[in-house]
């Protein structure tokens, strides 16, 4: 998947786990939790959905890499380069 496709995938996951939020104004470099009402259980949903939808395993020590959209895409790009977009 390309960076753009990963960004789209993350947006789709966020739309599912935070259905009351307007994601159209999401800022790339601002942490998700500073822009959206996300708690630790929601954050774990991002990890779980990446695992379920794309079979991507994210070790717990790397969770901080998923803070913002920019850092998430940057972290996932090499790990999802062989994943075929669904």
């Amino acid at each position, binding site marked *: 998947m390309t960076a753009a496709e990963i960004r789209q995938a993350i947006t789709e996951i966020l739309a*599912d*786990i*935070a*259905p*009351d939020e307007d994601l159209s104004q999401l800022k790339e470099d601002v942490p998700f939790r500073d822009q959206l*009402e996300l708690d630790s*259980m*929601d954050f*774990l*949903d991002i990890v*779980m959905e990446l*695992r*379920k939808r794309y079979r991507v395993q994210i070790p717990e020590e790397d969770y901080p890499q998923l803070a913002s959209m920019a850092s998430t895409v940057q972290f996932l790009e090499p790990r999802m380069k062989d994943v075929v977009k669904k």
Partner: protein
Amino acid sequence: MITGVGLTAPNGNSLSEFRRALLEGRSGVKPYETRYFGPTVAGICDFDELRYQKRKEVRRGTRAGGIGIYCSHEAVADAGLDWENVDRSTVGIYVGVTEHGNVETENEIYQLKSYDYDTQYWSHHHNPRTVANNPAGEISLNLGITGPHYTLGAACAAGNAGVIQGTQMLRLGDCQIALCGGVSESIHTFGIFASFHSQGALARHDDPTKASRPFDLDRNGIVVAEGGCMFVLERLADARARGAKIYGEVVGYAMNSDATDFVLPDPQRQAECIRLALHRAGLNAEDVDIVSTHATGTTSGDAQECDALRRVWAENGCHTAFNNTKSFIGHAMGAAGALELAGNLPAFDDGVCHATINLDRLDPQCALPGLVANEPRKLGEVDVVLNNSFGMLGINSAVIVKRI
């Protein structure tokens, strides 16, 4: 004192809608299909989940929690409480449940199957969704109530158990306001249908609205329903001080156990339970105007309850009217007792006893003299309602409410 009622039933999303349906003989049972089990019938609620919850709360929580939240908001509004200024540390939440966690566990296992049962795909939401206090806890979270919250696992006597617990906690001074009743999400698990079917106790009928037929010779089992009913209970002085409308007073209650069988009821113990509730209320059987029966539409259960009722009303059966609400909505499990009590409360105002419907061929074993068959009956003044709820493992309950 009962000062507020909030409910969702398969045939109404408020007490007034529910009461109208009961008086008009309108069933809430519909065709239903569930995973693995296939087509059946069920009582299904259509309240607006997003009225009091965000979409995220609905997604994260359980159906039982959502039902409890809806009913609690409606009850608080109906009670006319100045909610913003209520000290919520003095509110207790007591929710009866027949079971909890089956729906969520089944869903999770169903999803896990597509990951070849690899448990790293098991949701972190599983535990908070399935802890036994979940439905009461979701009410606490949503309404910002910081007093005690818990559920009461009491099989199909749970709705009454919730009301009894609320009454007891008010008497103990443990809370100033009790939010209590029962909820059920049971239709969302195939297991309850399959288990009743295996037991030969699941109702079937070409016309879903005729499937739930307590006391009828052609009854063939239970119609499973979802629903909820929460009451606001307060002490008389508190209710009067704020000029609250009072539906009635919980003047007596009792719970006991058969200690005889996993599923078969025991009329002797049921009768003892009813007598104990009457004794505590300082009433005699003939003082009761309406008995809201528990009967679920099973062959043996209905007859056994009638046996118990005859033991208590042996010589005084003429005046007391007997009805059954499951004939309209099916068996709402943990919510049943609370919904069935609520459906009878308006009788204090209108003097009418709603019927038991679908009674085409009365089973002679169930021919109670005061049975109100198919059409509502005008009784005149109604002062006392007794509500029966019994459940598996031999749990019996009776609640008596008196007009103020």
